[in-house]
């Protein structure tokens, strides 16, 4: 008889058309921010500044891509900032000790993916809680980063390497092109391939996916490897842009990334979300940070606004 009741209840509960709503709200929010900041600073809407915003968001944008997958699949990765730091100093350390720069880049990416694999192994294979595991790796990897660098930044890279983070193709910064390309690929993957289907289904009902004969462990593992790899990619662009690998690179970036994903409409408990939303979320955070910078608001106060944004975004989901 329970079933009867349950069915009636679910039939009454109309599923809200969250996606369309969220996307249009985000577009309006972004437009509002653009208008507001342009009244505050004449510099805001210049091509130079817009390019600047786009370049700045590549770091969180790149990491937000796999984070969207991770959160949709019902998990969480707090260690991305530390993985970024680890990849960055790996790159610096290897190059400094005489490795070819491009070999160093590849190895830095491998290290990022391996760190993600460690998370994935513990979470997917051994069923540990994603949040606690990634808090653990957050602390551990950051410690490792400081041990490697002894706190000193590693600078001085070949000019060809600077192209990644500073160069332009047809007037568009190369890093922005890469981010857009990866966003597009990820969009196609989540929309049109079975990887996307599995990701959503995993977040909605992991048991049903398992009972459908799908290797749940593998899918979840891959999302975490991707998360690590993309943090590595973000690290490469980061080092190239700032011409130096600091131990503090990426510290606290998980807040920006998770905020972007959550305000982009991805549901904190998984199962729902979109990359378009995440992309808009990334732009909103980039615009907000840039605009507030121009207005002279301190970085710490900006994080207060991000914190409030997270709470608002998630409260909205619970209704």
């Amino acid at each position, binding site marked *: 008889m329970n079933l009867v009741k349950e069915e009636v209840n679910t039939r009454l509960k109309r599923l809200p058309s969250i996606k369309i709503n969220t996307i249009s709200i985000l577009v309006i929010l972004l437009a509002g921010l653009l208008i507001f900041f342009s009244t505050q600073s004449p510099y805001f809407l210049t091509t130079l500044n817009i390019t600047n915003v786009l370049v700045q968001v590549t770091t969180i944008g790149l990491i937000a891509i796999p984070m969207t997958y991770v959160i949709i699949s019902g998990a969480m990765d707090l260690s991305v900032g530390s993985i970024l730091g680890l990849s960055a100093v790996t790159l610096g350390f290897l190059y400094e000790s005489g490795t070819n720069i491009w070999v160093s880049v590849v190895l830095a990416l491998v290290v990022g993916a391996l760190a993600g694999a460690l998370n994935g192994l513990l979470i997917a294979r051994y069923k540990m809680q994603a949040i606690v595991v990634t808090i653990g790796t957050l602390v551990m990897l950051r410690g490792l980063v400081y041990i490697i660098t002894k706190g000193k930044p590693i600078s001085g890279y070949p000019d060809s390497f600077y192209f990644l983070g500073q160069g332009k193709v047809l007037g568009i910064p190369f890093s922005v092109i890469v981010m857009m390309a990866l966003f597009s690929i990820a969009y196609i993957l989540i929309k049109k391939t079975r*990887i996307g289907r599995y990701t*959503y289904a995993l977040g909605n009902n992991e048991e049903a996916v398992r009972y459908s004969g799908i290797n749940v462990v593998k899918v979840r593992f891959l999302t975490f490897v991707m998360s690590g790899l993309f943090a590595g990619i973000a690290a490469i662009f980061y080092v190239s842009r700032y011409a130096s690998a600091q131990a503090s690179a990426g510290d606290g970036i998980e807040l920006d990334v998770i905020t972007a994903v959550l305000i982009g409409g991805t549901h904190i408990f998984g199962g729902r979300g979109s990359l378009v939303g995440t992309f808009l979320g990334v732009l909103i955070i980039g615009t907000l940070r840039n605009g507030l910078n121009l207005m002279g608001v301190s970085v710490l106060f900006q994080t207060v606004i991000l914190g409030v944004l997270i709470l608002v975004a998630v409260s909205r989901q619970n209704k």
Partner: protein
Amino acid sequence: MYQMDKPILIMEGITKEFPGVKALDGVDFELYPGEVHALMGENGAGKSTLMKILSGVYQHTAGKILLNEEEVTLNNPTVAQELGISIIHQEFNLFPNLSAAENIFIDRKEIISASGKINWSRMNAEAKALTESIGADIDVRREVQYLGVHSQQVIEIAKALSFNAKILIMDEPSAALPEDEVQKMFDVVKQLRNNGVAIVYVSHRMNEIFKIADKVTVLRDGGKVSTNKITETTEDQLISEMVGKEVGDLYPDKTKRIFNESVLNVNDFDITSKHKVSFSLRRGEILGFFGLVGSGTHTLAERIFGLKKGKGTVEINGKSILIKNPKDAMKQGIAYLPPDRHRQGLVKESSIRENMTLPILKRISNGLIIDKKAEQVINEEYIEKLSIKTPSQNQVVNLLSGGNQQKVVLAKWLTTKPDILIMEEPTRGVDVGAKAEIYRLINELSLSGLSIILISTEMPELIGMSDRILVMNEGNIVNEFKNGEADQQKLLKEASNSIDKMVV
């Protein structure tokens, strides 16, 4: 024995309507102090609804409840508990991290001294006294997670008694117990009866009822069929009362089925490290499996489909195959319709389309990209074939009726084009109309050469559908019934037989 002649509880004309369904229709039920009153009926007969009303979980739509000749309103479980009505569910509600005594007295004012400190010695002493009053010997200071199932049940009973329970509802109390602990539970129940507690004993198990109950009430289709003294009824009578008239045309004609060579041979196959089974399945056959909760039918299904790891190979079309995971099983043409469609069968937030092709996404992808066209065609085909009632294949599964949801799960597995289909409880929680349709579909599938393993706890379903029925008991296949040989009485007897041997 202590048998007072005034009923402690009278339920009169209890009716319960859910939107669209009448779960109970004018049921009368009387209970006397110091009696064990068995409540029997098939799944869906209304037993649990009646007990949920008595324990305050549900409110009846018509009728009245008299407790000690006074009318009472049981709005919620706390009120019922305070009035001395306690229920012990099949699944215990215990705190594994707390001691037995604390589980009994958690959050109760009685054990808090004036200073606000918990009076541990008093709590432990009272817990000990309570458990001893029902003849159980438990270290009440041990954490519950380290106690056995019987002890956990004793703690649940002691908790009820600590509220001065005068009426105790026990829902399938033997289901969770290993067989050697059932007798201990009986001793506890007898002790309770001697203490004057009225016990409602909900069970399927015929032999238990005759061992422990004083009276038995049978429900069927939401109505009361009979109340008898246990000495004045027989197993046969009870079963025929429970079953009622067979609904003849619910089941399709199975005489047309032809079986050929065997497709699946299972020899000494480990379902756990302790239990092995052997059987074979022929092409086009519907092989029924019957067993009570804990008999191992579910474990067997999960083992064959590779969801549970273990040792042993199965022989499929003459080849010996080791199945390590569901992928291996699906490669061999095995499909498995799980018993719980809400948790295991469906991603209810997704559309019919996405659910139906979940197991075959790889097959319908070009490289990585899912072929939407092919997906739509497959959906159209199966929506039509199974006559799933939906406005479109993009409909979210949540919004479908139970019967149609179940058809989606069935379709999902048919898209894998299986040779062997294991179905567990294929008609659980669907209405009679949808049942008949699902039976018709199963029959058609077997006529088209699909071999089916049908695991069910609904005996009429098994008898109506199966060509052979294997009965499992305590992890072993204990008997085989050919078509026409089985009836409910025989099935029940075989399924609960070993407990008989234990007790006698």
